């Protein structure tokens, strides 16, 4: 019970710190800018305006989220260690896993908030576009599948964040951690592609015949392309609730595993 309390309070403090970090204002400004950009960009096109608008909105959420993870998230984690702030917390009855889980959840909350703000801003501009050009509303477009795609986007960011926390727990410096997590993101984003190329294409160069290696890699790295539902949302394609639930389960279980490994590695780390 106390451990849950601890995690919650740490998460809350991290979230407050993250939000007051001027990050939130940056996000709000970005949301306004991107909304205007959405209206501008969309009218450059003549067909499929709805698709362009939805795609642009969701991409904006993804891009901002990545910036938040790689810069704000990493900075908050790194500052804890570099500026010995972690001692203030760990000199209290707080275990390493509570500390990491609290930090992680706090940043997840920040990501959630930014996703909500940007998602709403994008939805507003989309709504305007769809209302102004009703002929280009994607067939079967629904706000429910847009929301589901938005949640998937958030899940994907959560997974990237969990990987960053793991990288952070063993990397010798924040810069190395940043590099590692950015490359994990890139690998994760292309996991599906790589798997398809190697397993289906007999002329895949060095990777030919390395099916097992690729399959092993695809179990180690997060398969972020699964969470990318922009295409589905933009064209109003079928996106079943079952798939959505399974994706959420995958995201949560993968993140939990990452935080668990991070705890194990962090325990071995000397906090000098």
């Amino acid at each position, binding site marked *: 019970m106390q451990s849950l309390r601890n995690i919650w*309070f740490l998460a809350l*403090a991290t979230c407050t*710190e993250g939000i007051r970090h001027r990050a939130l204002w940056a996000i709000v400004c970005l949301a306004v800018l991107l909304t205007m950009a959405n209206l501008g960009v969309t009218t450059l096109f003549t067909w499929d305006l709805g698709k362009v608008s939805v795609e642009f909105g969701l991409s904006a959420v993804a891009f901002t989220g990545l910036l938040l993870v790689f810069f704000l998230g990493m900075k908050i984690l790194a500052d804890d260690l570099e500026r010995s702030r972690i*001692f203030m917390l760990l000199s209290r009855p707080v275990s390493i896993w509570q500390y990491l889980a609290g930090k992680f959840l706090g940043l997840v909350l920040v990501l959630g908030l930014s996703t909500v703000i940007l998602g709403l801003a994008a939805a507003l501009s989309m709504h305007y576009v769809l209302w102004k050009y009703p002929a280009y509303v994607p067939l079967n477009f629904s706000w429910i599948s847009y929301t589901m795609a938005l949640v998937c986007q958030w899940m994907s960011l959560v997974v990237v964040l969990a990987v960053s926390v793991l990288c952070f727990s063993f990397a010798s410096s924040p810069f190395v951690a940043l590099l590692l997590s950015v490359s994990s993101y890139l690998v994760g984003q292309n996991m599906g592609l790589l798997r398809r190329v190697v397993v289906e294409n007999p002329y895949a160069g060095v990777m030919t015949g390395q099916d097992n290696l690729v399959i092993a890699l695809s179990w180690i790295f997060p398969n972020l392309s699964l969470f990318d539902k922009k295409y589905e949302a933009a064209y109003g394609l079928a996106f079943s609730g079952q798939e959505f639930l399974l994706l959420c389960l995958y995201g949560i279980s993968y993140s939990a595993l990452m935080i668990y490994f991070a705890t194990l590695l962090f325990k071995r780390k000397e906090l000098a």
Partner: protein
Amino acid sequence: MTDPAIEILNLGKAFGSARKKNQAVVNLSLRIPQGEVFGFLGPNGAGKSTTIKLLLHFLRPDTGSLRIMGHAVGQEEFRHRIGYLSEFPFFYDHLTARETLLLSGRLSGMTRQTMNQRIPMLFDRMNLTEAADRRVKGFSKGMKQRLGMANALIHDPEVLIFDEPMSGLDPVGRHQIKKLIAELGQEGKTVFFSSHILSDIEVLCDRIGIINKGVLLYTGGLEDFLTDGAGLEECFIRVIEEDNHAIVA
């Protein structure tokens, strides 16, 4: 008989790889009974901070054992009974002083009620009442140090561990902290603090320990250390220099 507040036995700790091993603490044993104000002296890089970090289990000892209030460090939970102030107290820049104390109190398992009583009291005691709802980012070094003190005292711990509590403070700030440590001693708390500022130690401590290059050179009462009517500074420098010569020879 009650347990000693702090008990260190044959502590050893080295940093670095096997080839370039740097022995930070060598076979250090120390026993501090409850209710004592203990000053831990040594030049920069002597191993004071390392010892304190070992005591709080931020670092794992290579050899030896540490006990606080009878609890083995690293195996049993003891941290709700100690208050710690690090050498450079950093807080979350964007939380206010009050929020910082609330977080610390909650993490130490305090109830809202007790915190509501203690936080204003501590702000008053540390002269921070006016700054209570300002963000820590704008605090001066002295204010941060006093907030760190309040932070260490929030859950009313029995043992207080301060790492260089007076470094970098102006005379007024130093005086405030000194007064506070003296008061804590009178209240019957165990205070273990490190310093390289000798004049502070002289006024405050019941007993002192002197460490150089990881080796504890002396522990005992202040009066016994000050032989031949010489001042603390003179004696301290003599001991350290003798030790350095011995190592070279």
